[in-house]
């Protein structure tokens, strides 16, 4: 498959085609964080729209945005930089869930950790951003991200493959490593990952 995002040819590309019901198995990686190579030096609002291709409805659904560990209130006034970590969540329960909502009525409750930008703007540049996608956003935004291809630390992939059950492997229709089929035995043998720090992972439903 062709990646919708240019990750360069730096890392091996592992492409899964799996039964529809198995796509959610990969959401565990989205919770831990995946990396994308992209244009940085833009606002969170622009990043969501231009880089993650999130439409109005999706952006509305993203109620908590955490940039480098800090809740963001104003999407236009928080900037994505090379090396940033951006976590996205739908509306969360509880007072604390409400507290962490962007621009919510209880934002003062967490004023000690709220995101405040130190500069007015940043120069656009190519970079790598870590993205974490949680809860109700995983099946939409997260799934699209996996389809387009993401960078995942080799250790995380190794753990992920080790933890898969028989049922998972039964539901894998095709697994390609750099466009060539790879046998299950070879894939589960961590040898192919040795010396690699990242791999590019893409996942589509059969």
């Amino acid at each position: 498959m062709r990646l919708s995002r240019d990750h360069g040819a730096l890392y091996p590309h592992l492409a899964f085609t799996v039964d529809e019901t198995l796509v959610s198995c990969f959401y565990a990686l989205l919770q831990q964080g995946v990396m994308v190579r992209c244009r940085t030096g833009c606002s969170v609002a622009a990043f969501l729209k231009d880089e993650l291709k999130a439409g109005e409805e999706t952006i509305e659904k993203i109620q908590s945005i955490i940039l480098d560990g800090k809740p963001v209130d104003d999407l236009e006034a928080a900037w994505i930089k090379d090396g940033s970590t951006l976590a996205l969540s739908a509306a969360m329960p509880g007072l604390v869930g409400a507290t962490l909502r962007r621009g919510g009525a209880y934002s003062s409750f967490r004023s000690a950790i709220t995101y405040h930008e130190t500069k007015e703007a940043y120069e656009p540049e190519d970079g790598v951003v870590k993205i974490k996608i949680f809860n109700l956003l995983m099946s939409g935004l997260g799934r699209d991200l996996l389809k387009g291809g993401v960078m995942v630390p080799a250790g995380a992939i190794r753990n992920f493959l080790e933890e898969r059950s028989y049922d998972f492997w039964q539901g894998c229709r095709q697994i390609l490593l750099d466009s060539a089929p790879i046998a299950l035995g070879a894939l589960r043998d961590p040898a192919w990952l040795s010396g690699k720090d990242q791999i590019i992972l893409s996942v589509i439903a059969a």
Partner: protein
Amino acid sequence: MDKILRIDVGAESGPKATKVPVGEYAGLGGRALTSAIISKEVPPLCHPLGGENKLVIAPGLLSGSAGSMSGRISVGCKSPLTGGIKESNSGGQPSQVLARLGYNAIVLEGKPKSNDLYKVFINKDGVKITVDNSLKMLPNYDLVAKMKSEYGDKISCISIGPAGEMKMGAASIAFTDMELRPTRHAGRGGVGAVMGSKNIKVIVLDDTGMQIRAPKDPQKFQDANKRFVNGLKSHPVTGQGLPAYGTNVLTNILNEVGGYPTYNFKQGRFDGASKISGETQAETETKRGGLATHGCHRGCVIQCSGVYHDKDGHYLTKQPEYETVWAHGGNCGISDLDKIAMLDFLDDNYGIDTIEMGATIAVAMEAGLAKFGDADAAIQLVHEVGKGSHLGRILGNGAAMTGRAFGVERVPVVKGQAMPAYDPRAVQGIGVTYATSPMGADHTAGYAVAQNVLKVGGDVNALKPEGQVEISRNLQIATAAIDSTGMCLFIAFAVLDQPDTFQALLDMLSAFYGISMTGDGVTDLGKKVLKMERDFNKAAGFTPQHDRLPSYFKTEKFAPHNVTFGVTDEDLDKVFNW
């Protein structure tokens, strides 16, 4: 509902039940009723485990009706853990059943004359109290199985496990769920110890032959209930987030913002968070044939709960809630969901509050009794509590007692009760509630309806830091009111954002009782409840100095944001100025 069942456990020939008219307590339910009875009838300076203390169990105002979400039940007493007034509430079936049997409350009072243990059976024909010493030290699951074999499967149970019998400060009271399992607990404040001090092991309820409670205006009630349900279903939190993942959906995001207390409140991030998150939990439950979406009682449309199966697909416990997964998980450095689920089961079985127990184990780990992350050691410590060994007796009396016994400074308690799963240095507003709630550190104390809906105390500029005190006050007032209706607090998310849904709730109450309930009325009720509770605590010896977080929250920087708790004592003292 027109009567109170008073059981005098100190009567000459064993506990004696008397039905009395609800009288001066008419119109009150849930927390409003428990706190009214405790503040009027219990001497504030009494010993919590003595004959002067009372245990009040009260369904909500709409419990037993066809109203959705109306099945929470409140338990009130003077708390053996905090030394102040306590309302602890729970889901499960008993609230609906007790209300249909016509009782506004059950009050256990007096001091037992012997060491005999009793069971109470209540049905349409009346109340039967029987001595049954074969129940001594039975864990909750075994106890309920025994009651089922005796009384059939149409019952629901209110019970204590061994921790309650041993009068431990962390002892809970269990309420059975729809599957007749003792999975729902009034956990906080040691209410189980007070039931234990009355020598009542279990209250078995059977509402066979009783009718659903009828509203004064059935048509209006039905219409309001429909609007209320639609409001809950259309809101992203109550209609999607909670049903899909339960409350544990908070783990990832709390961890991400660095507000997830880890290793006994040492830091705000836990490396294993994604392994124990609500997302992972739901995926695990579904894969193993459990349930990721389930109600704790009939009539719940949100269904934030679930059923957790072990690796072999057998029932292990109900879906552990966020606070439980945090307390036994990240706070103890444990990232194995199966072990956490086992700890949840053991807590339910022995009858212990999961928050207090998790916080206690973390303090014990800090003291060197076990290593952080050692799940098997944590399980062993809970067994010690269930057995009542000397160590177990210390642990079962909570984090404060354990900290004192083992010389630990970092003990996250307020008024003797362990803090739940949100660090007050990262989310300082919740620290205001932890510090000032009459209940001790309690996340649900300031949880509910938005001040911009209720306008409690006028408009507040929430973006200013000083808004934290006002908001905490308003939330505590609103929560006290919601707790008095018997509605599940999780309705708050929909009510918070959707004034129509709040109006539907008011309309339900109005149509049911033939009154005109307004937002102001709800506010006044909340204030009245809080005032009663504060007055009780004052008379019990509480001063403004008790409304404080432990001092290390002001001095120890909390990573990753390196923040300390910055709300001043002067501001904390303003919370109850209205």
